[in-house]
């Protein structure tokens, strides 16, 4: 084992002794001093997760969150020097973490929070103007063949839980006592300019956006979503996508 390999192993495992070869001016036990590094590494990574997942932390409390985060860090230390997206697999960890099983929606709330960070840092592009989109939609013959390209920040989360309502309650937007967490909600996440918007979509609208992100044409997506939700509102979701400046281009499928 190389010097740094042993050092790293001891950083992540407090049960291991400190690496060999450390010295102190006063002959004091180097363990107390090595613990500073151990603490710096772990606490800074826990803090990074807490920055990304504030609502997740509020839902379970700081002590539970930080203990869970420490276990995750031991299993999945960062592999990138860019910490903005560290913890992308944390929601999957939460889903499989038995002590969190009593909060079944926790993993999906965490997923929504990571999508929010992704949207925040995504590439910038101008949206297509409402006029251009209206022109493209006005041609009834080509309409079913239209392919929509979304803003690079657009993300979709289709959840079995009321993720958008739960998230909104923790922003002080809605009253938490009014939320039934087991009502399925989809979240549309998009950042047209500086602010990330999280928009609630019903089941059909969520399915429609999902179809479009998988490069299905408007006609194909409409057919699919109408089967899933008989009262699917095409004009409603298109209006919402235009209003949220989520569409950056439209092309007719060859």
């Amino acid at each position, binding site marked *: 084992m190389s010097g740094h390999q042993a050092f790293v192993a001891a950083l992540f495992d407090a049960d291991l002794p400190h690496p060999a070869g*450390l010295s102190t001016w006063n002959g004091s036990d180097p363990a107390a*001093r090595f613990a500073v590094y151990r603490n710096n590494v772990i606490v800074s990574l826990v803090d990074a997760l807490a920055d990304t997942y504030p609502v997740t932390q509020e839902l379970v409390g700081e002590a539970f969150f930080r203990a869970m985060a420490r276990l995750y860090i031991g299993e999945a230390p960062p592999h990138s*020097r860019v910490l903005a997206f560290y913890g992308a697999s944390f929601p999957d960890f939460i889903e499989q973490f038995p002590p969190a099983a009593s909060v079944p929606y926790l993993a999906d709330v965490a997923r929504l929070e990571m999508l929010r960070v992704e949207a925040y840092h995504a590439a910038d592009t101008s949206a297509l103007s409402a006029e251009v989109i209206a022109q493209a939609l006005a041609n009834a013959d080509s309409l079913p063949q239209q392919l929509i390209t979304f803003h690079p920040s657009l993300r979709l989360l289709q959840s079995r839980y009321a993720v958008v309502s739960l998230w909104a309650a923790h922003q002080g937007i809605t009253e938490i006592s009014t939320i039934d967490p087991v009502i399925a909600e989809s979240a549309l996440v998009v950042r047209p300019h500086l602010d990330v918007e999280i928009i609630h979509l019903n089941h059909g609208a969520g399915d429609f956006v999902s179809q479009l992100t998988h490069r299905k044409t408007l006609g194909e997506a409409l057919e699919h979503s109408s089967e899933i939700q008989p009262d699917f509102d095409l004009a409603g979701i298109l209006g919402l996508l235009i209003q949220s400046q989520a569409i950056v281009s439209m092309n007719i499928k060859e």
Partner: protein
Amino acid sequence: MSTPHLPVSPHCGAPSHDSTLPTRAGVGLKPEHFRQIVETRPDIGFFEIHAENYMVDGGPFHHYLTRIREQYPLSIHGVGLSIGGETPLDLKHLDQLAHLIDRYAPESFSEHLAWASHGDVFLNDLLPVPYTAQTLQRVCDHIDQVQTHLKRTMLLENPATYIEFAASTMAETEFINEVLRRTGCGLLLDVNNVYVSCTNHHRDPHDYIRALPSSAVGEIHLAGFAREQDANGDPLLIDSHGSPIAQAVWQLYAYSLELVGPVATLIERDNDIPRFNVLHAEAQQAELLMREHTSLEQVA
């Protein structure tokens, strides 16, 4: 505030990386302060960013940095290159760094005498290096590689450390002198790190600063530390960047200015970020000391 009576480098017009940071105080740029800086344009000598925070595709970080860079000199400070690492530099990361430097053309780029990654694991801390002939060669090779790749010289920051290595065969200042001599890089003198490390290892911080080449100093860092104890009850200072600059560090800064002369000085705060005005006041304090502790011939 009034304009400081210092030789202030002009920073109007198109920024170029041939220029250097002004001999003024700067502040670490924090997202909490983006709006205030853009809206009120405070009289600050320069801003410094952590490179890795801006290695993202778009969004508010680039939006605000672009606007702030148009108005102020900029220092890019890396925390992830792992120059003291045993494993090769991450070339993808080096490319991202080169891209960021191309985009923002900072007046200065700096990194640490430390390691922060091993293989593909990133540790998000600045870890200590033993001072031996072997590590000297490795650090110099890495700095050569960085300077060649970036086509510019960098500043190397002296570390804050909590332990030493039995294997070390030279003093930290001896090691740094040799790195500067062999690679031609400059020195980022972190005065807080000097105070922290010298306290932790029972050395005289004035001797430490005198042992470094004052002419190589391209920037000074000032920050706050936290106070703990080691297993014997002796003081163990932690480079926490989470509190105001301590009086002892201001005094050591004044001492450094007598040797180095006026030089770009950064107020660093990365934890418990206060209101911008609190950091601005520390920057003004640094500029006051720059005026007071600089001999006339240095200004001339």
